[in-house]
């Protein structure tokens, strides 16, 4: 049985300004034990989908099952199986870290949970903060507490909604080591992130959303192999000629261009030379998930489905 099953999930927001179709018939399954990535630009519907899964929002169409239990009709069973790390950095200012975790545990009816709470604190680098008030913690520390809160009732399925947004390198390392260990021990993980290298490194399968629709669903390795070829990467000082800039991914001095073949690479470099620019640190690398992501998002959906999606 699928750990999570999204079945034709739709969500429409009606307001005075009009109707917003946040999700439009999204269907896919996440199998037991998967490390699954849900990607998409801002406003694609990722958080809405997770909110529906979590019971924070209600679908206007379709349904979501967690281990076969409907998240609306059997909400108590479904929520016990889910550990959700919300995207917003929220906290209850009245309590310290240990109180926060004990309370969260109690909501699930789990009492005398201090051994597991200690283990969570240890693994998330919070052991010396157990008696600190939530208000005193830095943003990164608050984020760790959010993760601990989500795991305090030992849920088999862990959902992380952009857990590393605005988080320092150290926490990202600690967090991913811990989550990867839980995944190896059998937990199912659903992750949304804007850091595509994280998704590429961690997720065995990936879904992409665009404007509320599922536009890609495949194994990470398959998606990478479908991306068109290589990427030319170099640094320049100065402005790239407009005909190149249109196709390029530019990050400060770094320019990356899709390079299907050697001829293309020669053309790029000569165009840059003609513009009177000095090229440094030239390298050719394999297309990564970010390239795939940009290609998927740029593609118009044809009538006959699209090549990024495995037929179901």
């Amino acid at each position, binding site marked *: 049985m699928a750990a999570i099953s999204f079945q034709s999930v739709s969500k429409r927001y009606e307001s005075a300004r009009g109707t917003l179709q946040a999700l439009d018939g999204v269907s896919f399954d996440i199998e037991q034990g998967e490390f699954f990535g849900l990607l998409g630009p801002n406003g694609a519907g990722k958080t809405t989908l997770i909110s529906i899964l979590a019971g924070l929002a209600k679908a206007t169409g379709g349904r979501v099952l967690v281990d076969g239990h409907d998240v609306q009709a059997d909400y108590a069973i479904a929520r016990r199986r889910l550990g959700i790390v919300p995207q917003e950095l929220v906290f209850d200012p009245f309590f310290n870290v240990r109180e926060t975790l004990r309370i969260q545990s109690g909501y*699930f009816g789990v009492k005398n949970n201090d051994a597991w709470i200690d283990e969570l604190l240890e693994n998330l680098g919070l052991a010396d903060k157990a008696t600190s008030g939530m208000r005193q913690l830095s943003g990164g520390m608050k984020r760790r507490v959010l993760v601990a809160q989500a795991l305090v009732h030992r849920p088999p399925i862990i959902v992380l909604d952009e857990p590393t947004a605005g988080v320092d390198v150290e926490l990202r390392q600690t967090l991913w080591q811990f989550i990867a260990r839980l995944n190896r021990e059998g937990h199912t993980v659903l992750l949304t992130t804007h850091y595509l290298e994280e998704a590429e490194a961690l997720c065995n399968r990936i879904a992409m959303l665009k404007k509320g629709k599922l536009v890609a669903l495949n194994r990470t390795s398959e998606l990478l192999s479908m991306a068109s070829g290589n990427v030319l990467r170099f640094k320049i000082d100065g402005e790239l000629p407009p005909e190149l800039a249109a196709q390029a991914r530019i990050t400060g001095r770094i320019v990356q261009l899709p390079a299907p073949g050697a001829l293309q690479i020669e053309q790029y470099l000569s165009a840059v030379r003609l513009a009177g620019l000095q090229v440094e640190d030239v390298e050719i690398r394999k297309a990564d998930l970010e390239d795939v992501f940009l290609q998927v998002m740029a593609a118009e959906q044809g009538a006959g489905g699209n090549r990024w999606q495995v037929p179901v």
Partner: protein
Amino acid sequence: MSFDITGWQTLFYKEVLRFWKVGFQTVGAPILTAVLYLLIFGHALGNHVTVYGSVPYTAFLVPGLVMMSVLQNAFANSSSSIIQSKVMGSLVFVLLTPLSPLAMFLAYVGSSLVRGIAVGIGVFLVTFLFFARVSFAAPGWIIVFGLLAAALMGTLGLIAGLWSEKFDQMALFQNFLVMPMTFLAGVFYSIHSLPPFWQAVSHFNPFFYMIDGFRHGFFGQSDVSPWLSLAIVGGAWIATSAIALRLLTTGYKIRH
């Protein structure tokens, strides 16, 4: 509706801890306010007015002030807890759990009841020990109306907290509904001292019955029968509870 109430004790405990940690503000301050009312009104009117024939004004005032404190604080507890956690986003920690609507209802109303009663007992002890002796003609009514009023106001606070989206909407409730209705419910006077028109108007104020029934427990006398007050206050609590449970079940303004 689900009758599973697993976890309600934790939410109840958390809600009690929440106000207790800022007890100066949530328990101490309202006691001081009530004592100030007693001092000022007692001093200004104490020697000139008696009520029900023989009850001195300061003694008459004590149950009214106790009940006023119970009402305002029970309301403040659930309403401010919900609106704060909604605005700050920490309500999500409750919403993500299997806590049923009934469990949430019990916890929010129960903790409001504890705060209302704690403040009420505080006001009573200070006023009774230092300022005015009152009798206990029918202590059963004191307990019944104390608990019922706190529960009713905790439930109303829950509804107000769910309905409000911002702090100023909450303040609207507090300042334009709860405050005037308590003040006009006979905290400071027996409605028999009012002109007939305003007496009749007072009978439409549900808060009046809470204070009147409560006062009956002390003096054995009241403006209306305590049984009538019990029926009205009890009926109001059942009705508001049904509304609150309905709002929690549908996720009104908390699950979108």
